[in-house]
């Protein structure tokens, strides 16, 4: 049962998130009926689920909320900002309600009762129509209470004498519901023997009605003594909705003088069976539809995914070993098989990795809310745009992205966007704009947060850095270098510390957190125009496409994503180069000899190779002995003992069973550059 509860909570959290997103949409377009419908539907599902799993409190609470939106969608209640505020507060409360441990908390109870009172007030601003609500309710299932009756009405011949018109009775009968009346004229005599005062006609009727059998009896109340009346219930559903039944009965009435209860009942039985089958088919179809939806996305525990990933990783490693074996041992026929295995495992790898990728959408939804609340709190009117919500990233990356992104957004709102007055004075629209954009760029995902606020003045940063003793006044720095200073610990340029940001524990933590998921942060700002923060993230964390290189007979992997070009270079050029610069393709490129940096002796070969990698906006060469080839590296952690050696992001096991270290090209260059500047000093 507990696992069901867990599943419910999982699902409910998702529903609540969805609800939040929809509400925020609704706030922008309050008149959008589809959104109102959507809110209602989600609440309805939430209510249903919670009552099913015994979360009665949530059930009751959402029931009230649902009523509000029921009224709204029926245009009985306007959608005011107040309603939205109460609903959003309720959503927060719902989140708290998912944790049953909260239920005894007095604060929780106060909020709970407060919200219930508020919702009640929304429903009954001046205690209006309860019955309207119940009417709406009744419409829900019109089918369930309908019965079908067979009526045989045979008036006595002298019925006209009392002034009774049987046709009126039949009209009245038809008023009770859907009906099919068969008039039988077979007793009408030939014209010469007809008595105009006599009623020769009798009727059979089939009526489907919600009314009880008494209502039918009532119709014939005054003619009971003057007619033969037979009323029989033939089915508990609306048989007249079954066209085949109607056809059959009509046909029967045409060929026979009267249909008779027995025949009708027989047909009714068939029809009922048919209808029931149809109904269950509808239900089934609905269920199938539901299942279709659920196959579109199924829930899998992340443990299973993790083990799948591990197995795929092992497979890729084993496949590499197989390829090597095939290369070394020329077994006829093995080559094509190995190639096939390689192809398959590559595909399998790609699919397995795409499984653990999830769209960034949920994260974006959360931020919609954050920006809304913050902009209210700070009294800044802000338009929040998101783009690329379907961009997919590794689950762990998304989880670790939440805090840094939240921080950046807060900064943008708090420091970036100016007060309305200042905005107007500088000729900007009063409404500020913050955009959160995600998109693919090669093997990485870029997330950009840009605002059209005040921007960051490099001079202010510079002064501040000098004041804090981070840099010396005479140090010459490019604008980019200055802006990068904000990523240093303890650096905050906010003039006042607000509740929201400015404690100086900001950007350095952001940078650290993003570095933990192998990402990079970049900042660009134009005074008066705004600030853009760019985060570059890897798609997945566990397999990388790499270039296998050899240094001193040891293999290393350089991530392929960072590599620009590979050149051959004479050894003499490297060791005689001044200021570590070589000219390649007419461009001056600074380089690092990995042999030298790893404290190894120079190689004996005359030719070495330079792998040119992108580093920030520059190209930097890494000199290796030689390039072995492309390699899919399954990244394995080096373990805690090497936690201080982050120039290697991990290790991978090669086909021959040896271990190759995977370089983090960015960190390695940063590290070497640091050492070099110290040397120069």
């Amino acid at each position, binding site marked *: 049962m507990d696992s069901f509860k867990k599943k419910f909570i999982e699902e409910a959290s998702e529903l609540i998130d969805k609800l939040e997103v929809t509400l925020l949409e609704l706030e922008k377009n309050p008149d959008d009926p589809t959104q109102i419908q959507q809110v209602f539907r989600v609440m309805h599902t939430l209510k249903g689920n919670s009552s099913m799993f015994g979360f009665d409190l949530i059930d009751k609470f959402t029931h009230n909320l649902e009523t509000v939106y029921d009224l709204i969608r029926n245009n009985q209640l306007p959608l005011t900002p107040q309603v939205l505020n109460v609903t959003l507060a309720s959503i927060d409360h719902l989140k708290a309600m998912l944790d049953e441990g909260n239920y005894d908390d007095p604060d929780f109870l106060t909020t709970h009762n407060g919200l219930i009172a508020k919702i009640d007030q929304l429903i009954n601003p001046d205690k209006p129509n309860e019955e309207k609500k119940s009417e709406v309710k009744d419409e829900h299932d019109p089918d369930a209470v309908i019965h079908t009756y067979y009526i045989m009405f045979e008036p006595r011949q002298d019925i006209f004498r009392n002034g009774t018109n049987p046709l009126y009775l039949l009209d009245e009968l038809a008023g009770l519901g859907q009906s099919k009346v068969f008039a039988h004229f077979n007793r009408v005599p030939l014209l010469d023997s007809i008595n105009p005062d006599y009623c020769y006609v009798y009727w059979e009727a089939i009526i489907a009605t919600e009314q009880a059998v008494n209502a039918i009896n009532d119709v014939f109340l005054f003619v009971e003594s003057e007619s033969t009346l037979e009323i029989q219930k033939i089915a508990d559903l609306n048989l007249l909705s079954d066209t085949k039944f109607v056809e059959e009965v009509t046909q029967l009435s045409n060929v026979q003088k009267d249909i008779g209860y027995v025949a009708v009942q027989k047909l009714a039985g068939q029809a009922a069976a048919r209808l029931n089958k149809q109904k269950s088919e509808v239900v089934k179809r609905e269920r199938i539809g539901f299942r279709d939806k659920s196959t579109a996305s199924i829930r899998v525990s992340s443990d299973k995914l993790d083990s799948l990933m591990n197995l795929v990783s092992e497979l890729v490693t084993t496949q590499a070993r197989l390829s090597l074996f095939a290369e070394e041992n020329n077994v006829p026929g093995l080559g094509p098989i190995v190639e096939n295995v390689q192809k398959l495992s590559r595909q399998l790898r790609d699919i397995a990795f795409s499984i653990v990728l999830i769209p960034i959408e949920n994260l974006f939804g959360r931020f919609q809310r954050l920006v809304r609340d913050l902009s209210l709190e700070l009294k800044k009117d802000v338009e929040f745009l998101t783009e690329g919500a379907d961009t997919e990233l590794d689950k762990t990356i998304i989880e670790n992205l939440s805090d840094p992104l939240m921080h950046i957004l807060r900064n943008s709102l708090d420091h970036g966007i100016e007060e309305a007055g200042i905005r107007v004075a500088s000729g900007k629209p009063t409404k500020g704009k913050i955009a959160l954009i995600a998109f693919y760029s090669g093997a990485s995902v870029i997330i950009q947060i840009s605002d059209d606020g005040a921007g960051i003045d490099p001079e202010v940063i510079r002064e501040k850095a000098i004041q804090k003793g981070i840099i010396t006044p005479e140090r010459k720095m490019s604008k980019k270098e200055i802006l990068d200073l904000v990523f240093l610990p303890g650096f905050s340029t906010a003039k006042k510390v607000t509740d929201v940001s400015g404690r100086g524990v900001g950007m350095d933590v952001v940078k650290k957190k993003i570095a933990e998921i192998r990402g990079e942060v970049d900042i660009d700002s134009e005074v008066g125009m705004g600030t853009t923060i760019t985060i570059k993230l890897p798609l997945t964390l566990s397999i990388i496409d790499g270039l296998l290189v050899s240094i001193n007979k040891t293999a290393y992997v350089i991530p392929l994503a960072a590599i620009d070009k590979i050149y051959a270079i004479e050894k003499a050029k490297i060791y005689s180069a001044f200021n570590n610069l070589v000219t390649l393709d007419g461009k001056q490129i600074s380089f690092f000899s990995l042999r030298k940096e790893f404290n190894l002796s120079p190689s004996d070969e005359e030719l070495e190779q330079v792998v040119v990698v992108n580093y920030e906006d520059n190209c930097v060469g890494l000199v290796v002995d030689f390039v072995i080839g492309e390699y899919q590296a399954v990244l394995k952690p080096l373990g805690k003992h090497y936690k201080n*050696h982050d120039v290697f992001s991990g290790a991978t096991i090669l086909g021959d069973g040896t*271990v190759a270290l995977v370089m983090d090209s960015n960190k390695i260059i940063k590290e070497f550059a640091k050492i070099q500047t110290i040397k120069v000093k």
Partner: protein
Amino acid sequence: MEQEITSKINSYLTFKLGDEEFAAHVGKVLNILEMTKITQVPKAPDYLKGVINLRGAVLPVIDARIKFGMPEAEYTTNTCIIVLDIDLDGDSVHVGAIVDSVQAVLEIDNNQIMPLPTLGSRYKSEFIIGMSKVDEKFIIILNMDAVFSIDEITALKVNAEMNADSADVEKVE
């Protein structure tokens, strides 16, 4: 449960570093490997010899001699890697330790384990569980968790000037 069972076992694996014999509780030992090719990690401290492939996982390897502040020695056919399960800040971490040779698995009762002599000890007390006399030889029983933690070289032997300090501490205890 498992913890309880392993702590009730009184078996110790003994190994040699130079002339001295040490012992590690078998509960800490996962495996003993022959010396294999170690992939060096550039710019790491000396005692971190590199990493090896342990059945598909990457295992960091520590040279116990360097870690204990002893002179490095050539690897011989007797040189082994003991794969240890170390408790590091609550996490279980696997690490390989290179030792000169593995000796035997001995049963040592808890009451046979003697505390270190309080005065004039050549070893730092936090790394040592105790000593035991087996076949007229003294075996030092190590606290593997402490010895193979992340810290830089944990010179097992106390330096001359530190000797006085630690003796003081021990007296207080």
